[in-house]
C-alpha cells in the first residue's frame, strides 16, 4: 500500500478524521510527526499488556484477561483488564492537574493540586479487588447487551493514595450528604463536549471507608494511563465503574448522584427477581453496590493433561465484595462432593484471597475441577448462572477448568 505517499499528502485531513476532531495549529505540525493519539495502534504495546489478553472492543478500548493470567497475588499492569466508556484523555499535564470538591452538600468548594493532595494528607496503600459489574456477561441467556466479558474483568492491584474521607473532612460535609459523584477528563465517544462518558459514585458510607482512596500510584508507580493517570478514585469490592479514572472533580450530593450511567439499566439490576428475557421498568431497578462472592482457578490453565500417579496442585483467588471469603471448596464430580481448599486471609480488607489444594484423581479420564467460594454471611457461588438481568451483571457462577488424567 502507498501508505507513505498517502500520509504525506493527506496528513492533516486524515489525522483530523481519525481523531474525530480538528487539529488546532495543525499546519504547524512537524512533518512526519504523528499525534500521540495515533502513534501506537497496537494495544498490547500501547497499554503494555500481556499477549494473551483479549481485545473485546477497540473503540472504546475494552480488554480482558484470561483466568490463568490472574495468578499473581498482586495483579501487574500487563494483566489488568481495561474497561473504558469513552475516549482516554490526551495530553495530561500532571503538574497542573487539580481535584475540585464541590456539590450541594459540601460546606465549601475547594480545589487541590496533585502536589497538595500528596503532601497535605496521610498516604495509605491497599490491595483492592476491582471487578467490572459486567464480568461474566457473555454467559447470560438470552444474551445481555454490552461488552461480552468472560471471566477476566477483575484484578487486585496495590493502590496508593489519600483517603477520600480525609479530603471530605478538610472541606466539611453537610448532614444531608447522601452520595458522592465523580467527574473525569475522558471524552464522549460521539465527540460531544457537553456529554460525560461516565460519572458514577457511591453512597457516603462507602465514600467514608478507610480503604476508599483518591489514588495516584498503582503497584508503586504512577497509575498507567489506561487505568486513570494521574488520579483515580478507588473503591474496592464494588463494581469497578465506581472507581472513576482521570478524576478532576468530586461532588458531594444531597441526592443519589444522577450522573451518566447512574440511571436506567446501567449498573443496575432488578429489585425483584425476573424471568430470563423479561422487560424491566427503570423504576424497578436498583443500583449495584457490593459485588457478590466469586472465585477463579488461576493455576493450572484449563486443558492440562497429567499423569495418573501424580496429584494436581491447584490455586486461585476468591473475593466477596464488601465481605470476606470464609472458605473455598473444590469438586471433581460436578458438585456431588466438595472438599475444602486452604484459604488464606486477605492482605487487607477488600483484597482478594489466595486458595489452594492438592487433588488426587481416582482413575484416568476427563475431569472438570470446579471451585466454589462462600462469604462471611454463608452465601456461596451458584453452579448455574445466577438471576438473569437486562444488562447481564453479577454473574458469579462457579469457575471450572478441564483436566485429563492419562
Amino acid at each position: 500500500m502507498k501508505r507513505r505517499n498517502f500520509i504525506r499528502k493527506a496528513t492533516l485531513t486524515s489525522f483530523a478524521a481519525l481523531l474525530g476532531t480538528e487539529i488546532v495549529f495543525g499546519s504547524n505540525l512537524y512533518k512526519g510527526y504523528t499525534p500521540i493519539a495515533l502513534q501506537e495502534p497496537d494495544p498490547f504495546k500501547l497499554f503494555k499488556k500481556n499477549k494473551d489478553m483479549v481485545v473485546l472492543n477497540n473503540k472504546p478500548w475494552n480488554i480482558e484477561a484470561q483466568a490463568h493470567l490472574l495468578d499473581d497475588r498482586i495483579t501487574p499492569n500487563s494483566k489488568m483488564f481495561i474497561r473504558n466508556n469513552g475516549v482516554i484523555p490526551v495530553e495530561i499535564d500532571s503538574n497542573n492537574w487539580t481535584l475540585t470538591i464541590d456539590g450541594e452538600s459540601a460546606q465549601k468548594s475547594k480545589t487541590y493540586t496533585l502536589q497538595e493532595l500528596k503532601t497535605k494528607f496521610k498516604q495509605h496503600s491497599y490491595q483492592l479487588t476491582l471487578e467490572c459489574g459486567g464480568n461474566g456477561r457473555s454467559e447470560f441467556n438470552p444474551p445481555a447487551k454490552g461488552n461480552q466479558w468472560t471471566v477476566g474483568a477483575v484484578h487486585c492491584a496495590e493502590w496508593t493514595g489519600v483517603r477520600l474521607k480525609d479530603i471530605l473532612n478538610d472541606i466539611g460535609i453537610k448532614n444531608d450528604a447522601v452520595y458522592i459523584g465523580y467527574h473525569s477528563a475522558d471524552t464522549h465517544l460521539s465527540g460531544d463536549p457537553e456529554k460525560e462518558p461516565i460519572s458514577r459514585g457511591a453512597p457516603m458510607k462507602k465514600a467514608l471507608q478507610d480503604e476508599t482512596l483518591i489514588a495516584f500510584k498503582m503497584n508503586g508507580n504512577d497509575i498507567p494511563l489506561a487505568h486513570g493517570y494521574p488520579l483515580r478514585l478507588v473503591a474496592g469490592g464494588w463494581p469497578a465503574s465506581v472507581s472513576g479514572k482521570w478524576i478532576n472533580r468530586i461532588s458531594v450530593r444531597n441526592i443519589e448522584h444522577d450522573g451518566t450511567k447512574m440511571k436506567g439499566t446501567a449498573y443496575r439490576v432488578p429489585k425483584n427477581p425476573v424471568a430470563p428475557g423479561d422487560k424491566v421498568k427503570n423504576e424497578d431497578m436498583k443500583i449495584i453496590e457490593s459485588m457478590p462472592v466469586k472465585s477463579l482457578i488461576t493455576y493450572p490453565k484449563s486443558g492440562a493433561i497429567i499423569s495418573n500417579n501424580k496429584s494436581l496442585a491447584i490455586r486461585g483467588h476468591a473475593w466477596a465484595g464488601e465481605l470476606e471469603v470464609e472458605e473455598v471448596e473444590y469438586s471433581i464430580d460436578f458438585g456431588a462432593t466438595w472438599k475444602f481448599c486452604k484459604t488464606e486471609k486477605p492482605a487487607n480488607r477488600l483484597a482478594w484471597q489466595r486458595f489452594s489444594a492438592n487433588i488426587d484423581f481416582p482413575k484416568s479420564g476427563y475431569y472438570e475441577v470446579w471451585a466454589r467460594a462462600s462469604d462471611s454471611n454463608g452465601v456461596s457461588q451458584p453452579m448455574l448462572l445466577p438471576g438473569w438481568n437486562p444488562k447481564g451483571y453479577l454473574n458469579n457462577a462457579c469457575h471450572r477448568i478441564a483436566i485429563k488424567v492419562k
Partner: protein
Amino acid sequence: MKSTDDYKRLLKKAERLAYAALFMMTLAAVVSMFKIYDPTLSIFNSDSETLLKIEENEDKIENGIHLKTGFIDDTGLMTVVNNCTNCHSSKLVIQNRMNADRWNATIVWMQETQNLWELGDNQKVIVDYLVKNYPPIDKGRREGITKIDWYELN
C-alpha cells in the same frame, strides 16, 4: 597504417566501454537511491491514484467478510457500516446478539444518550441485517466448557 587503425579501433572500444561503465554506475546509483528513499516508487504515482486505491481497499470483501469491520457481507452491510461504526467499533456490534425488539430499544437508547441520529428507513435495514446475521443463540442455564487447548502439564 594497419597498426594505427587497430590502435584507433581499440581506443574507440575503450571509450565505449568507459561510457557503458559510467552509465551502469549511474543506473546503479539511481536504483539504490530509490531502494533507500522510496522503495515503493511512490514518486511515479499521482496522489489521486493513491487515494483512490486506499478507498477501494477500504470496503474490500474477502470470504464474505467486510475486511475493515469484520461484518458479514449481506444486504444492508454498508448502511450498518455507515451508521453504526462512527462512535464505537464494529466489535461491539458483532459480539452482541439481540432480537429485533432489543436492537430497536438499543437504537432508541443510543439516540437518547449517545447522539445517534434519526435513522429513518435505514433503521429497518440495519435491524434486519443484525437479526439475520447475528442472531441470539440459546445457551441454556450454563454452557459446557468450550475451546479447550489441551497441553501436557509436568
